[in-house]
């Protein structure tokens, strides 16, 4: 069994085709097919983890196949602490997204579930690829299913939002592509292999690294997103269907963070070193800006979308500090935010379905109408504002411990921004759950949806009280890359 990693990509890919074929005979069966395929992928991932040695930070279970020999590209797959955690997140959130779609997605199921599985395959491919060409192909493949998911199953302005999402992120990826080409051309060896190029780029002059980093920056800044490149995100989120938002906020944004670490930090350390103060300021601006804008949102979903922007700012802040704690905290924050935002977006979709609105001003008295959903919303909000004993707190604490040794003032500013975050969440809760109710709950049976959210809630708590479970995977990797 040395093909574990390629199977992790192939099973959802082939499973998507099978699901489509199943849908031709029985539309109802597609969701069962998709669920079983994503669970099989999950089991395979657990199997991969048993073969994965957590004490080593390096790439493991490497697979190599010959491919485009004439330009020095091959199919190279590998897994390390960073990719293992993100692949795990992808697989978990795909299952959650299928759970959230179970009753809500009613039209064109035949195409919907295959697209979701294609998205999963693309995302796993991004995190496992160790060759730039194959990496970039997966990176772009993820756009296609997301585009269709927003555009077909989305809200009223879905066409505008989907095309904006597509063009924005596609253009930014092309700048990343320029940087990849630049790295390739400056390397003495003709290769696209990320591990080989990582060693070569260390020898580049800081100026050259900085030039290359500009393209990489545009690539991840739009994906993450970082202010002022974030304008596609609120549109895409507000219009996307709930499972689409779960995947978008939960995993697609993490692709930005992944590139920041894999290409930005690991390959171009001198560039980050030079750009450190700028990156710190950008990330602090992102946190404050997202916080204040979130405060003014009328729509619960766009409030959560802006909270995502702020949380990703913390990731950039941690990585830019270039300390062990900062980077480990940044990765922890990616996972934690993946879980929390998936939970928040899911609950937001359920509230909309149940009481018919997402407008915060109209949601007052929610607690009386739907106590269960309100409970989850409160839990998610507290996780989002970084309540101790929940995963977000550990991530933010680690980032700030790391960053404090690099910049004192900036870190204090960043901590102040958390007050803004806390206040918009609390204010939102105050306006929604209390007060006189004018709502009419449809009293929908949420059994399936809530069941699929339970793993998220459990993991948020576990990662909040027992962080070593995740740090065991992250730390060897971070120690390895910071020791270079």
């Amino acid at each position, binding site marked *: 069994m040395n093909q574990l990693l390629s199977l992790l990509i192939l099973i959802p890919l082939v499973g998507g085709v099978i699901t489509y074929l199943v849908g031709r005979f029985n539309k109802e069966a597609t969701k069962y097919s998709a669920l079983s395929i994503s669970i099989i992928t999950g089991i395979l991932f657990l199997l991969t983890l048993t073969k994965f040695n957590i004490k080593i930070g390096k790439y493991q279970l490497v697979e190599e196949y010959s491919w485009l020999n004439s330009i020095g590209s091959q199919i190279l797959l590998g897994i390390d602490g960073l990719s293992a955690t993100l692949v795990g997140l992808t697989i978990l959130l795909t299952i959650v997204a299928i759970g959230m779609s179970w009753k809500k997605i009613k039209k064109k199921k035949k195409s919907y579930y295959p697209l979701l599985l294609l998205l999963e395959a693309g995302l796993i491919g991004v995190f496992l690829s160790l060759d730039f060409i194959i990496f970039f192909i997966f990176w772009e493949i993820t756009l296609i299913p997301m585009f269709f998911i927003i555009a077909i199953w989305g809200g009223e302005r*879905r066409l505008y939002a989907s095309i904006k999402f597509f063009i924005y992120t596609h253009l930014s990826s092309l700048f990343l592509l320029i940087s990849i080409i630049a790295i390739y051309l400056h390397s003495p060896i003709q290769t696209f292999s990320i591990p080989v190029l990582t060693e070569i780029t260390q020898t580049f002059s800081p100026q050259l690294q900085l030039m290359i980093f500009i393209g990489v920056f545009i690539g991840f800044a739009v994906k993450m997103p970082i202010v002022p490149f974030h304008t596609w995100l609120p549109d895409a989120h507000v219009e996307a269907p709930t499972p689409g938002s779960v995947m978008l906020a939960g995993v697609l944004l993490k692709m930005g963070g992944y590139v920041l670490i894999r290409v930005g930090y690991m390959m171009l350390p001198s560039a980050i070193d030079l750009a450190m103060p700028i990156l710190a300021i950008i990330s602090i601006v992102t946190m404050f800006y997202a916080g204040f804008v979130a405060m003014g949102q009328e729509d619960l979903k766009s409030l959560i979308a802006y909270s995502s922007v702020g949380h990703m700012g913390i990731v950039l802040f941690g990585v830019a500090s270039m300390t062990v704690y900062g980077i480990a905290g940044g990765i922890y924050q990616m996972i934690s935010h993946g879980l929390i935002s998936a939970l928040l977006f899911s609950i937001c979709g359920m509230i909309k379905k149940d009481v018919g609105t997402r407008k915060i001003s109209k949601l007052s008295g929610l607690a009386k109408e739907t106590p269960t959903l309100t409970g989850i919303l409160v839990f998610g909000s507290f996780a989002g504002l970084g309540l101790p004993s929940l995963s977000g707190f550990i991530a933010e604490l680690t980032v700030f411990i790391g960053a404090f040794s690099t910049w004192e003032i900036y870190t204090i500013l960043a901590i102040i921004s958390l007050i803004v975050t806390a206040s918009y969440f609390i204010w939102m809760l105050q306006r929604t759950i209390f007060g006189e109710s004018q709502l009419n709950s449809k009293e929908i049976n949420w059994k399936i949806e809530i069941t699929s959210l339970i793993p998220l809630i459990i993991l948020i708590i576990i990662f909040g009280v027992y962080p070593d479970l995740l740090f065991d995977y992250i730390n060897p990797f971070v120690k390895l890359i910071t020791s270079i």
Partner: protein
Amino acid sequence: MYFELTPYLIMLIVPLTVVAIDLVINSKRIPYLLTIIGILISISLFLDILLSGTSFNKYMISVNKFSIYLSIIFLIGGILTATVSNEFLESAHAEFYSLLSFSLLGMMLAVSTKNLIMIYIGMELASLSLIPLVSFFKKKEKSTEAALKYLILNGISSALFIYGISLFYVSTSTTNLIQLSKISLGPLSLPALAFVVVGIGFKISAVPFHFWAPDTFEGAPTPITSFLSSSSKKMGFGVALLIFPMALASYQANWTTVFAILAVGTMTLGNIAAIKQENIKRMLAYSSISQSGYILIGLAVATKIGLAGSLIQILAHNLGSGAAFILIGGIALTINTELIEEFKGLGKSSPLIALALTICLLSLGGIPPFAGFLSKFILFLSAIEENMLWLAVIGIINSAISIYYYANVIKNMYFYDKQIKSEISRPFKIIAVFAILSLIAVGLGYDPILELAIEAANTLT
């Protein structure tokens, strides 16, 4: 020993046989089948020559990897057109197919030589056979107008081209490309270069010589539009690739700048004009112009990898736009309109055709894992390698703009709940399957194709 010439011979025999048989039996199927079989045999013979690794260089004919690569591309364009033509034709089948084959022969000859005279003969054979094809629906006003525009502008471009050639001959007393490269052109070099560039500029519809293209593309019968875009235009590029890097290597600094400017103008204007088109054929015509701009990047860079990039972009565009035009033709046959708006609901009524058209458009937009990504990737790589980052950035911005109008078609096909009736016949479905498979196969980088393109580019320098 003349085995290398057999594919050309077959493309000569096929049209003659088609016309001869038509004198005896008036049939729809015989010309159709004969042409397709002829093209298939020709392609397999070319593949055979490739595998055996031989080449031919005698008289005025030169068969090498470059000419085989392009000839196969022309033949693919020809077979795409031939497969569906019977759905459009009402009469005169034999004439249609024989003209198509003659045109293919002309294209193949134009790139299978090292002599300027032969290039001219090939180009004229191809274009003169195409003029009646463009006006084949003689009762339709637009078809006639298209043919007239094509006739006049093609005449002008041929005249300019041959005038340029004659200036070469005056100053060097040779028409052989290899000998030309060894002799200085003297004072006539700049006018000669200018005439040849403008002459070819019309053929490849580079901005500012593109005005005929949208009208001709719109008015011509759709299979012929596909042929114009997938093969006839590529012949112009083939000729440019033959003449400039080989014969005019000593003037490289002059023409690379010209091609860089042409590339920028062609990409940008083609794109901007495509955005506001409501007729899908016209939109694809402008998109085809902008895609030519990418091919010009390779000529502007003029390194081995740049030329290989051009060759792969020629293949990617041949498959993508050739199939897209044919599929649109098939859709237009059943819904009787070419307006993008009327494509609503197509994703549901004919899923295979809609999927294939989507993949063609995504490939043209340069989205992986389809062919257009690989070609653009190599073109941008070559431009950056030669310190022409600005050219790559302009290309990238254009490629993002183009997504807008390609996505607009996809949006109309899939994102509206509308019931339309569309029963698309089998030949179009074959093309759809072929397009999906070939675009993915090239895009996922089937290494031998990439290698062949690089070797073909090597024969040019």
